[in-house]
């Protein structure tokens, strides 16, 4: 008690609150602290990132030369399906969620999220959904591609439990994302500290808000698509069965009405991170703040009106093609606006090329390349040449790896000192960055040419003499170098926990509220709620005010009910895959008991 009181009386002390993370495993299982949940999200996402990366390396090994037989065609299909599903749903989205969790409440001056137990529920459901999906490797992994086009997913063409694992896992993950998005939307709208007006919110918080609304409105479409698939597979309904009059294109619409906003769900958090890093390392407020905010909101809106550009090859007719082509080209405008604002922020700033800044800068360059090839296939005639070729593979890896991954890893380097209280090594970080950006381009740039030469996406292998060999070998070599670059990251990541220098409150001299409190923050974040008077509270004179605390605030108590409800849902998924009706009963009972225990448990005890 003595130490915590001492810390209370010197809230600006350089020493962080190591007590924030102390306690045994039980304290982590029942935690409702947004910081701990953020860490759990981050570590789990990194674990799945490694698994998805290993799958990618096996794919590259298989494609290194003509007629290779490293894995069977069946396993190859499973590898690219699981690679895509993993990277999108189990690595990038949860990594974004890790930052939403850890950073957003700190940035808006809140003590926790609006619904702390719901937050724990989101994490456990995500973890169980991911483990459920991955358990399929021990039985039969899904092999219908990450967008699971009907009727490849029908029982006729995909017998066995692979596709069942896929859609049940995605339902769990979707529920987790929806609940998390609801939580973050309400947290940002309703738990801002006094004076934190919407147009004073940090850009990362803004992009989290936009992303949350995208998730709230986009996930129901895929939920319905997957529900219809479930009824087709389990109960012989005819939604995607052409023989009874069903239409396979319905799946494509439902999937991409979700799937395109999903692209922005993956990229907007990274853009938010870049919008934090660039002003900090240029020591200059973000150029044209309102325009950057509005362009993010606009991307969110237009993002719902472009989905059919994934379907030009379906043959929707000239009117639909023209409309979706036009909306797709329009969405490049707000994206371009953001890029010019970042460049203008750097212009005339005192640039410090620390590792987070390098990643943000890498993001901008790689994302421009990915964005330009994106505008190319906004045109249906060009798209018909490029679709389902390696050109598209190159495009979305520039957007999702060159964009999201660079942005999110920049975020890890940027906020690691706040999370752990330690600085990461700059030297190792620079090794990681330069190796990663060089290897990334060696891996994915040749794929543009492979695609234009006609190499089809998802092909198991290719004949010699088609001219694909050399560039594929280059790409495979690059991919292993890319994998090696992450060894520097993980070495740095774990080494700095012990050997990193103490970070202090604000090692980067950043402007936002999370840097006003100790690193790591105390479990209650802010002993008294700050009053915000500026968009850059830590830079502006008198930018915020925080009255002295006379007591430690009371925080919500931990709860075991969220994990109980999540495990009930997991049991339901297991029941569905094993066709045990009694297990359904047990699952429903556990969910029921969990929800009631939760509802009648007081938040503060």
């Amino acid at each position, binding site marked *: 008690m003595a130490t915590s009181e001492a810390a209370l009386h010197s809230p600006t002390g350089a020493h962080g609150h190591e007590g924030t993370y102390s306690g045994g495993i039980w304290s982590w299982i029942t935690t409702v602290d947004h910081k701990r949940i953020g860490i759990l999200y981050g570590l789990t996402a990194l674990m799945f990132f490694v698994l998805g990366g290993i799958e990618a390396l096996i794919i590259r090994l298989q494609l290194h030369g003509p007629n290779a037989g490293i894995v069977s065609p069946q396993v190859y299909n499973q590898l690219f399906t699981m690679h895509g599903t993993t990277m999108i749903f189990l690595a990038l989205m949860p990594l974004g969620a890790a930052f939403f969790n850890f950073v957003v409440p700190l940035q808006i001056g809140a003590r926790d999220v609006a619904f702390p137990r719901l937050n724990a529920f989101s994490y456990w459901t995500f973890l169980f959904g991911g483990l459920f999906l991955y358990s399929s490797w021990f039985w039969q992994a899904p092999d219908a591609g990450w967008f699971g086009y009907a009727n490849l997913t029908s029982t006729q063409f995909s017998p066995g439990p692979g596709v069942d694992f896929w859609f049940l896992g995605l339902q769990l993950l979707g529920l987790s994302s929806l609940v998390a998005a*609801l939580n973050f939307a309400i947290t940002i709208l309703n738990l801002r500290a006094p004076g934190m007006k919407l147009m004073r919110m940090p850009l990362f918080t803004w992009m989290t808000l936009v992303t949350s609304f995208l998730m709230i409105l986009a996930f129901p479409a895929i*939920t319905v698509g997957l529900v219809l698939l479930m009824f087709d597979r389990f109960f012989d309904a005819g939604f995607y069965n052409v023989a009874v009059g069903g239409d396979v294109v319905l799946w494509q619409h439902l999937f991409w009405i979700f799937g395109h906003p999903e692209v922005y769900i993956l990229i907007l958090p990274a853009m938010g991170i870049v919008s934090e890093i660039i002003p900090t390392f240029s020591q200059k407020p973000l150029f044209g703040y309102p325009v950057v905010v509005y362009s993010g909101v606009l991307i969110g809106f237009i993002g719902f009106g472009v989905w059919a550009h994934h379907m030009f090859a379906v043959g929707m007719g000239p009117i639909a093609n023209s409309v979706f082509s036009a909306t797709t080209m329009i969405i490049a405008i707000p994206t371009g606006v953001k890029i010019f604002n970042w460049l203008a922020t750097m212009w005339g700033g005192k640039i410090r090329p620390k590792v987070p800044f390098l990643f943000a800068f890498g993001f901008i360059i790689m994302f421009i390349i990915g964005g330009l090839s994106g505008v190319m296939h906004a045109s249906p005639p060009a798209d018909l040449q490029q679709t389902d070729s390696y050109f598209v593979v190159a495009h979305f890896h520039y957007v999702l790896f060159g964009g999201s991954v660079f942005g999110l890893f920049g975020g890890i380097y940027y906020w690691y000192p706040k999370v752990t209280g330690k600085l990461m090594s700059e030297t190792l970080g620079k090794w990681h960055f330069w190796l990663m950006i060089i290897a990334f381009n060696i891996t994915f740039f040749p794929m543009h040419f492979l695609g234009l030469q006609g190499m089809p996406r998802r092909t198991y292998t290719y004949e010699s003499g088609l001219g694909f060999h050399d560039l594929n070998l280059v790409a495979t070599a690059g991919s292993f170098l890319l994998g090696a670059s992450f060894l520097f990251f993980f070495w740095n990541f774990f080494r700095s926990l012990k050997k990193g220098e103490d970070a202090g409150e604000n090692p980067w001299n950043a402007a936002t509220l999370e840097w006003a409190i100790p690193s790591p923050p105390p479990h209650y974040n802010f002993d008294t709620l700050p009053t915000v008077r500026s968009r850059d509270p830590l830079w502006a004179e008198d930018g915020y005010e925080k009255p002295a605390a006379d007591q430690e605030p009371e925080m919500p108590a931990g709860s075991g009910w969220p994990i109980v409800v999540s495990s009930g849902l997991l049991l339901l998924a297991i029941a569905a895959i094993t066709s045990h009706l009694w297990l359904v009963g047990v699952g429903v009972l556990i969910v029921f008991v969990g929800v009631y225990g939760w509802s009648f448990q007081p938040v503060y005890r």
Partner: protein
Amino acid sequence: MSQGDTAALEHHYTTTGQPSRKMLMWAFIGSECMFFGSLITTYLVYHGRNLQGPYPADLLSVPFISVTTFVLLMSSLMMVLALSAVQRGQKKWARVFLFLTAFLGMIFLGGQVIEFTHFAENGLSLSRNLFGSTFFVLTGFHGAHVTVGVIWLLTLWVQSLRGKLGPEHSLSVEIAGLYWHFVDVVWVVLFTVIYLMQGVKT
């Protein structure tokens, strides 16, 4: 003001002044609109594309479903009265109206059971044709929502019987009410789309 009061105030501090739980329900309803919107669109896209009977006109009974629709709408009225009674602290009326809301919801569900049974006896099933697939999934999901609502309302009713539903808990009733009204509104749309528009060519 004592320190305890300050803490209690801070627990309830919100930027908008609205309770977070209520905003959560509104955001959730937004998500549900997209959910039912996708299901309704599916129903409409497949309308009239049956390759074999039974067809909607063979089975759908507008008079019967009009009665259960009326019952569900009345349960919405009871919900309004229940909330008003809880807010005014009229414990007896709160119990009566909460029970009536749930009871009318159960009658609606009973009507759905009768309808489903009747359709099944006439050869309609999930796998029979597209009408069967779309009808059972769409109305089934609505029925599941009503069921959740009934369980929720009965829970509140039991709480009121135990004397634990005073005016200070009116927010809990208000949020349940938001959900219940939303589920009713969805049914009004389904009633229109499935039963009243069955002859419309899409």
